[in-house]
């Protein structure tokens, strides 16, 4: 079928300069539907910037981003998220600090559960049902991510790792098609790392969600991803299977270290 041929996200010649710093210098990546793509590279190699440019947080200087064949460059962030069913997490942990975990998660799913902005201003029985469904899913995810004990706390009062987990859970909340994760495992304890990995493989396997994961925990990333792209100084250094990437001398030199 054609649909399987077409990459879910196609990044074409993406460039981004900050003054003298070339954060991205013409990056091309195709992300296939249903894969888990690992994205690695030394600090400052442009990984987060790539996410920013794909999701509309930053305007790229040149290049295009195609989502399911539709050019989404220049779209506002919320439209990309909602219409593209395309979410991303941030490297710096961000949550809604005054809301508890339930509300944080309901918010993550809310825009996907209501047909329009105006419909959210009125709470009738239908809306109540939608919210109840969202809360149910939120409870599930809270359970899975081990946040039950602190789920009633305002998210701003949770520990760094707990916030990171919450952020991860909110990505899964609306069951989008594509999720970009920026270091989802940073600061998570080893036991929970396994749970998170399970979540990702499960979501990828059964729900068919496509993932792109930036992660410096290479061991875990290599076992998780189907394919790994390496960025170096804003350019693509390698794009291969995990096994091939770890052996690639350039990658070892630039990133993994001796």
């Amino acid at each position, binding site marked *: 079928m054609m649909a399987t041929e077409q990459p879910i996200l196609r990044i074409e010649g993406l460039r981004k300069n900050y003054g003298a710093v070339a954060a991205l210098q013409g990056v091309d990546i195709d992300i296939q539907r249903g894969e888990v793509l690992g994205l690695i590279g030394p600090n400052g190699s442009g990984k987060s910037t790539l996410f*920013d440019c794909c999701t509309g*947080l*930053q305007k790229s200087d040149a290049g295009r981003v195609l989502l399911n064949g539709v050019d989404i460059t220049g779209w506002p962030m919320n439209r990309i998220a909602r219409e593209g069913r395309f979410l991303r997490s*941030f490297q*710096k942990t961000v949550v809604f600090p005054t809301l508890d975990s339930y509300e944080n998660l309901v918010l993550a799913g809310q825009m996907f559960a209501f047909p329009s902005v105006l419909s959210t201003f009125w709470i009738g029985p239908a809306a109540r049902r939608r919210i109840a469904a969202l809360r149910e899913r939120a409870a599930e995810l809270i359970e899975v991510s081990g946040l039950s004990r602190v789920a009633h706390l305002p998210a701003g009062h949770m520990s760094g790792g707990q916030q990171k987990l919450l952020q991860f859970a909110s990505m899964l909340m609306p069951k989008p098609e594509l999720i970009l994760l920026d270091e989802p495992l940073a600061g998570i304890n080893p036991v929970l790392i396994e749970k998170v990995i399970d979540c990702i493989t499960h979501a990828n396997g059964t729900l068919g969600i496509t993932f792109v994961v930036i992660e410096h925990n290479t061991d875990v990333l290599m076992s998780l991803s189907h394919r790994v792209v390496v960025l170096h100084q804003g350019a693509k250094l390698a794009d291969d299977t995990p096994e091939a990437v770890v052996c690639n001398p350039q990658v070892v030199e630039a990133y993994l270290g001796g």
Partner: protein
Amino acid sequence: MGSFLLEQIVNGIITGSMYALVAAGMTMIFGVLRAINFAHGEYYMLGTFASWWVISHLATDYPLAIIAGVAMACVIAAIVGRLVMQRLVGQPFQAGVLATLGISLILQNAVILAFGGGYKVFEGGWIEPIELGDFGMSQQRVLLLLVTLVVFAGLEWMVRRTRLGRSIRAVSQNIECCQVNGIDVEQVVRRTFLIGVAIAALSGILTGPINVSIYGGMGEAITLKTFAVIVMGGMGNVRGTLIAGCLLGVVESLVAGFIGLQYRDSVGFIALLLMLMLRPHGLFSSKARF
């Protein structure tokens, strides 16, 4: 027409430099406290009142009254700084709004209580005009302009080069991190506040002879102008404040000269807003990535 334009620009720069002088302190205070100081005009008023009192009751001459006025304002600032401002560190922003509104009410009406509500006449200063071609300017204005330049040069130097200046910038960015690095946030807040108040008082005293009549509520109008200037200049930005102040002054003068005095404030504001549309965070602000 050309010379008229020039004249209005000169008028505007003179007025604007006064705005900038008052705003300088406020923008720094905003920097460290994240609080819009609704009471800032009150310190301008206090300085003026203090030196008016010294002149009219102790019969001192103007230069001495300048010192006395600034000193008085500083004493009050030290008290307010210790009792109120430093406690606003780390408080939610509404605390700053309420506290400064409260201080504004207290200072304004305490002055009304102490000196009577009626307007007073400020005597003293160098009001003789200096002729410049076919229009003139009082010596006092020249003094004001010079003082503004000196103060801003000093502030710029302080903010960039001195320890206090750097810690002011640090506090304005991340209080928790200041604690981690051993910067005494409350002390920095107190000192910044004191400097800001001293400058506001100084500008009040220097404009006293020009504005002649003084009264307890005179700070309100100037506070409004300062808001505009500090936002334009980029909150916490000293150099930006000077430029924004002069720009506002010039725009206002042009409006008053070509359209009508009654449209001055609003058209001035509209011009500012239009500029803000182009640079939503002020002329000289910087913002880090998300």
